[in-house]
């Protein structure tokens, strides 16, 4: 007690102040990194708005089958290349489906594609129960086969979101761990690991992709039994390409961090390597990771479009934003500009990615260790 009194005296503090400070410190400590971040994220209106927007987007995409949209895949040739106009429509592929009983899988296969998941089939049946044959018209125009652009954008978001998630997951799981480990270990191990990345960087991915895709083609039945189909492989390939840069970036950041005072201090007091990694380094690289992630996702979507363009991506009649946008640019010519084929997919892509970036910025600020406990 006496020493405490002395300390207070020396610091020139009154006792009630000290009590208040201690309580504050306790409160500060009691708030976890995440709940603190969440609190600050909510305070950031732009970031929070973006988050809400993305959630709505995600839900729309996930529940696409339940929405009264025209088929994204079945051609409707008489309606081709119509400019956007406001009207309501009637589903012609549901025309012969009796509404008083569940739509059968065969009818779904005609309107969409084979191997629709059971959950999606359930959603489609629900849709028919809710909306009957009633559906939206060509609000965003139609494409060259008369398919509704809006419907294709909504369905296309499913592919694009999946691709983005797969790439993000690979970047995070492999890239961050690999890069952080390499940077932290330093010396020979670091050297070796980075040279490995260099090698993988340089191997022409396009041959790897063609090779894997044709392999899939040859052993289709066998591979499908173990759940490997073209789409899965496609996601794996994208992930495999996109963790490399992340590893480099993280490693660079770790390298610069690990010579900083607070890490050295931790090392001096004898903290273990994993502890240094997860308690000190990771929170500090987080900001760069999030930035890079928000940069990776658009790149991945374009990469997907590019692979589809080469015939190595998703199989039609499925769609993705990337393919929609690149098909749209094909339609640019001085005679007649089919602007709706370019503008709407671009808006969809740009708005989602913009929200993602703004959220990324918000997250970065919210997670910044230097900002903890402040506002």
């Amino acid at each position, binding site marked *: 007690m006496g020493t405490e009194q002395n300390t207070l005296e020396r610091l020139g503090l009154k006792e009630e102040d000290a009590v208040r400070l201690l309580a504050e410190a306790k409160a500060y400590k009691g708030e976890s990194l995440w709940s603190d971040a969440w609190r600050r994220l909510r305070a950031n209106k732009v970031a929070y708005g973006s988050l809400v927007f993305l959630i709505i987007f995600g839900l729309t995409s996930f529940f696409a089958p339940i929405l009264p949209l025209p088929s994204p895949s079945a051609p409707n040739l008489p309606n081709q290349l119509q400019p956007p106009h406001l009207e309501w429509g009637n589903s012609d592929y549901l025309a012969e489906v009796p509404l008083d009983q569940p739509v059968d899988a065969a009818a779904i296969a005609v309107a969409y594609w084979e191997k629709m998941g059971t959950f999606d089939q359930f959603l489609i049946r629900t849709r028919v129960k809710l909306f009957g044959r009633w559906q939206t018209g060509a609000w965003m125009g139609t494409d060259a086969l008369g398919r509704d652009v809006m419907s294709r954008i909504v369905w296309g978001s499913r592919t694009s979101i999946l691709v983005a998630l797969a790439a993000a997951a690979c970047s995070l799981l492999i890239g961050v761990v690999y890069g952080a480990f390499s940077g932290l270990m330093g010396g020979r191990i670091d*050297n070796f690991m980075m040279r490995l990345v260099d090698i993988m960087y340089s191997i022409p991915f396009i041959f790897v992709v063609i090779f894997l895709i044709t392999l899939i083609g040859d052993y289709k039945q066998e591979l499908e039994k173990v759940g490997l189909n073209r789409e899965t492989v496609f996601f794996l390939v994208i992930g495999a390409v996109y963790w490399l840069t992340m590893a480099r*970036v993280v490693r660079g950041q770790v390298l610069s961090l690990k010579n900083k005072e607070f890490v050295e201090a931790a090392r001096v007091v004898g903290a273990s390597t994993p502890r240094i990694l997860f308690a000190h380094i990771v929170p500090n690289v987080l900001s760069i990771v999030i930035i890079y992630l928000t940069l990776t996702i658009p790149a991945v979507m374009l990469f997907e479009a590019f692979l589809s363009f080469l015939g190595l991506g998703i199989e039609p009649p499925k769609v993705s934003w990337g393919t929609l946008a690149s098909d749209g640019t094909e339609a640019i010519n001085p005679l007649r500009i089919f602007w709706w084929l370019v503008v709407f997919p671009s808006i969809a892509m740009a708005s989602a*990615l913009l929200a993602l970036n703004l959220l990324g910025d918000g997250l970065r600020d919210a997670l910044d260790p230097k900002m903890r406990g402040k506002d």
Partner: protein
Amino acid sequence: MIPFLLRRLLWFGITLFVVASVSFFLMHKVKGGPFDNERALDPAIEANIKARYHLDWPLYKQFAQYMGPFNLDERGLFGSGPEKGTVQFTGVLTGDFGPSFRYRDFTVNDIIAQSLPISALLGVVAMMWALALGISAGIASALRRGSGLDLTMRLAATAGIALPNFVIAGFLVILFVFLIPLFPVAGWGSIQHMMLPGFCLGLGFAAYIARLTRTGMLETLSQDHIRTAHAKGLAPGTVIMRHALKGGLLPVVSYLGPATAGVLTGSLVIERIFNIPGMGSHFVNSATNRDYTLAMGVTILYTVLVYSLNTIVDLAYTLLDPRISLEEQ
């Protein structure tokens, strides 16, 4: 520094060899060959063509012949001609990448010599756009964090990243070619030909650089030595240029390596849209044509480019941040 560079050189050799051999075997294992066509060939004719290009040899032998100055053809290495009936070249180790299988009137060296300067020029234009737009936008938005300027810059930068460059190219073509006929729609040869593709190619990188600069600057601005510098009473401009920018550009520098390589080897998409005869298109076309020699040539070239650029980046890193030592790299 010298031992560091020597070590790098050694690794460089190893990397090149591994990349070359993996790529070689991979591309030969991929289905389809350079001479497959809609019109299938008579088996005898096909055999003649394969013999001409040594494609009838076992792979390891083709690889050895491709890599080195070895004489594996029992009919003699240099005595080519219709009598000998094979296309000859001296091997990659002597700097000869061989004849292209698709563009048969050119060697791979010819093709690279024709297309690399074009891509490099396009890359320079693009990189200038990117650095000028990116760094200034990044600094401005970091210094006025949260202001309207910051928000606008960030929105613009995000749009630059979020919109695929072929979409931007599309909009620009509509605007500056069809509506206001300022630039040609495609082709190569004059300054006008360069502006639109350079801008489209640079914009994505500019956006990246702006974001990286902003983040880096924010990080550095909050650090103690900057506060000290401010406290010392240094002019804000000096603090920013001398201290903050140095640390703040670190992430940009590490990004410049891959970015320059990406820009230099051109962007396939941009080259395609504007029909620019650069290197970018060869990366994909050589693969889809199964032009083995050209594909190997551009792969090796790409490796060299990326590797040297990364080495330069690592060097620049230590110069910019004295706490990182070369020994650690």
